[in-house]
């Protein structure tokens, strides 16, 4: 009943070895692509966090423009959120506390998107503040499109992370 591994015909062994190599190459290529996406999304959040962190007074004003939170809370968030974004982005880039970083960034982008939609519905003409003054003249549509693209990328990274094996 027990068959030795070399009992298979030699051709089958060659085929299965070729399949394994192809699968390995595919797996490694896929891992590289996901890592590139980690870097891109991480880079975007580091850039956004740094711009806001350099001018917290302006960012506090941008948060206050949404008319959702009292001013002192806007100030606290203006000091805190840029650093949270930067640390989570570094988590993505260096794959350090990866799941936690992904979940925080996803939550942040969902909250930003909902706040933007709420502001639009309430007729507020606001500066989104997402990329400091660089995003000052963004339209609502481009703001929303950017947020949804980043959100989709974060979901994709979260999903891929479940399937990814260490390379």
């Amino acid at each position, binding site marked *: 009943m027990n068959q030795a591994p070399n009992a298979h015909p030699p051709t089958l062994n060659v085929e299965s070895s070729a399949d394994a190599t192809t699968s390995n190459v595919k797996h490694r290529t896929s891992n590289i692509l996901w890592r590139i996406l980690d870097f891109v999304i991480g880079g975007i959040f580091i850039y956004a966090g740094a711009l806001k962190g350099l001018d917290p007074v302006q960012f506090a004003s941008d948060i206050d423009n949404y008319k959702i939170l009292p001013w002192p809370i806007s100030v606290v968030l203006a000091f*805190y959120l840029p*650093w949270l974004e930067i640390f*989570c982005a570094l988590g993505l880039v260096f794959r350090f*506390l990866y799941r936690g*970083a992904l979940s*925080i960034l996803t939550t942040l982008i969902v909250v930003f998107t909902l706040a933007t939609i709420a502001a639009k519905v309430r007729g507020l003409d606001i500066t989104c503040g997402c990329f400091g003054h660089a995003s000052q003249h963004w339209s609502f549509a481009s703001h929303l499109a950017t947020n949804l693209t980043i959100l989709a990328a974060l979901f994709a990274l979260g999903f891929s992370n479940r399937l990814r094996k260490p390379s």
Partner: protein
Amino acid sequence: MKFLLARQAAVLAAVALLPAAGEAIYFRNNISWRSAIAPSEMVTLEQARAWGDAAIWVDARPDDEFARDHVPGALSLNEDRWNELLPQFLAVWSPGKKMVVYCSSLSCNASREVARRLRKEAQLSDVFVLEGGWEAWLKKNK
């Protein structure tokens, strides 16, 4: 799994607190914790009126609102046409004048933004935001 995720998120949230606290200390003199506009940058209608000819009234509302009505003698300077209107404003401005910027109401942000840009980009001092904005003016001038 969920515990691990929550623990990782908690670690990141806690680590971010440290530089945030440092930055809050560093910027402590640049931001007011009580109001979006530092009290020293606000002016009441009575104060602004008392300045008389020493004050330049700046209307930060959109063009159509300015065209409808505005504070007598006010100059329009809004963010929509900032590059176009700023040179016109600077031609009228003279050193020693106090600028009183207003927008539609207490809750609008345009006056705050225009005042900020006048200080930062045009390097002007003595820029004040009118408390209550155009609504406050209308109320007192009915």
